[in-house]
């Protein structure tokens, strides 16, 4: 019964929170309307997500989000310093090939987004079978170090969250 009413509890909760964010007011009426949307939208769209991702450790997600937020702040300062003070001739950009251990599409998408938002790297494309990710690095003297950083800092944590 509960499973039929709320087939995707996390999506329902997200929809309620997003609804509150959109109307920007806490009232009972908004809670009822948001709750209604949170119940109806997952039911109507259930056909479109047959294999939904399981998140096995919710607290790891919070830890990961905090680490990424902190890294975004660091990334901003680093990139701004490179742009403002490094002469173009001294900027050494590299393409970096990062082999992936992650297999689920959601985990790889999260990793690609994280790479783009964090220090000096933009994810460019995947290998045709999804086994590698190609990363462009704005400035580094040590491409292998950047690759190992991505693997140990982000991929290891995502592996714990999604698999």
């Amino acid at each position, binding site marked *: 019964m509960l499973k039929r009413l709320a087939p995707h509890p996390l999506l329902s909760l997200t929809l309620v929170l997003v609804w509150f964010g959109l109307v920007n007011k806490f009232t009972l009426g908004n809670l009822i309307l948001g709750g209604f949307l949170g119940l109806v939208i997952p039911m109507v769209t259930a056909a479109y997500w047959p294999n939904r991702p399981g998140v096995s450790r919710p607290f790891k997600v919070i830890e990961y989000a905090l680490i990424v937020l902190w890294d975004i702040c660091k990334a901003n300062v680093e990139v701004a310093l490179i742009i*403002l003070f490094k002469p173009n001739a001294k900027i050494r950009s590299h393409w970096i*090939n990062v082999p992936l251990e992650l297999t689920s599409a959601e985990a790889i998408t999260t990793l690609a*987004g994280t790479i783009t938002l964090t220090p000096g790297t933009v994810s460019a494309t995947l290998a045709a079978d999804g086994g*590698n990710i190609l990363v462009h690095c*704005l400035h580094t003297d040590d491409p292998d170090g950047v690759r190992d950083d991505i693997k140990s800092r982000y991929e290891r944590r995502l592996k714990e969250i999604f698999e």
Partner: protein
Amino acid sequence: MDQLIEIGITFFLVVSGIFGLAGSFGLVKLRETMQRLHGPTKATTLGVGGVLIASMLYFGLVKGTLSFHELLITLFLLLTAPITANFIAKTYMARHVKVDDLPGTDRRCGWSVYDDPPQQPPAE
């Protein structure tokens, strides 16, 4: 106390202005499209983030009303910025980057912009 609040809000506005300017300046200064992508995806994120924090502080402390749709803007910004960057990167690669300039994947399959996926998807 009022002055402290105003100093705080001003601080976030100035910080966001500086980062927004740095990110936009990167578009002019850097030489290649792939390098230019780095400016808007990062520096601008903090630029917009600073304005949103200042806005939340202003409404919370000065106007006395709780305002949290800024969080939603931040969330959508963080979700969409990497996707846009990825689209631009892929288009640029398809048109201007030769596969020989890239590092190989060290496996049977090449990069998806240049190579077709395997006929049988690998068993998972």
